């Protein structure tokens, strides 16, 4: 690997190359019927893996990066997220 001068990194957010989803033991599963689209899970996820494009679509979890910490499920005011045992 060629080291840049000053070890500068010029590609913003390139950490997305690390697919941290493999760390997960528990998988958050969102019940879109219970979800009220409040957006709290999006704010509290330490790994920035939940996003919501439209209200119809609702929040979407990216399992390539989700570490399964369970904060989203714990903080959801409507108990719409359930942590399930990961199967591989």
């Amino acid at each position, binding site marked *: *690997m060629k*080291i*840049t001068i000053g*070890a500068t*990194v010029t*590609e*913003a*957010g*390139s*950490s*997305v*190359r*690390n*697919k*941290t989803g493999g*760390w*997960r033991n528990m998988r958050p599963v969102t019940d879109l019927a219970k979800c009220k689209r409040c957006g709290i899970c*999006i*704010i*509290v*996820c*330490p*790994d*920035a*893996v*939940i*996003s919501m494009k439209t209200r119809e679509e609702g929040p979407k979890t*990216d399992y*390539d*990066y989700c*570490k*399964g*910490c*369970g*904060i989203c*499920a*714990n*903080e959801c005011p409507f108990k719409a997220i359930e*942590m399930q045992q990961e199967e591989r």
Partner: protein
Amino acid sequence: MNEESLFASGHTACAGCGATIALRLLLAAAGKNTIVCQVTGCMEVVSTGYPNTAWKVPYIHVAFENAAAVASGVDAALKAKGEREGKNIIALGGDGGTYDIGLQALSGMLERGHDVLYVCYDNEAYMNTGIQRSSATPYGASTTTSPPGKFSIGEDTPKKPLAEIVAAHRPSYVATASVGYYQDFQTKVKKALSKKGPSFILVYTPCPTGWRTPSEKTMEIAKLAVDTGYLILWEMENGDRNTLKVTKMPPKPRKPVEEYLKIQGRFRHLMNKPEELKKIQELVDAECKRYGIE
């Protein structure tokens, strides 16, 4: 993933890390015209594994002690070039890099009056090096260098009142915050950045690995710290102590501090020591009284 987040997925923080939530909230409040100068610490290690970075804003990693000095330099350089307008400069350190190692540089930045916001994320010990105590470690906590045993109850000194030490410098803005009450934290970030001159925010960030807490409880614990009065959220503006106010009152009556302690492995050894629990409750009561909290 969430493309809008200025702190990207793929960082290598432990599952449920409170400090990474704080960084995401901080950047969301500050916006993309922000330059970050960060010391060595957990959040640097997990976000900048060469050749990658989780940061989507200009960022420099510096030594353990000098985020405040480097941020001062960035401020001075941009001013000299006439390019200071419209940019936020944020210095960032953990409790080890701020309470202990970077205190002198922080004091200098405050005293010289640089237009910088220093944010300290406080997880109450040196975590990524293996959970050694810092001067932010609270009374009674077990760390690898303050282990409880026959002759020890764990850390035997109270936490250093860093935000009050900063307040004594009379900065433009100083506040304490908790990642659990994130709207309060983000309001404070915006307020600090809107003021000219030095500002400081201490944000409390639970660490599931070092505190031995379930990863899903991070936000809950950060709220409980405030609701028990263990952590007091306050702010002071324009270096004027008359502006000092508590921004988030605990519920009446306050929750007993034991509720906060008992869910954390680092305090487990205190659970069969009622006299120690009483002592911690009294310490909390005395602090609350100082801030006019019942």
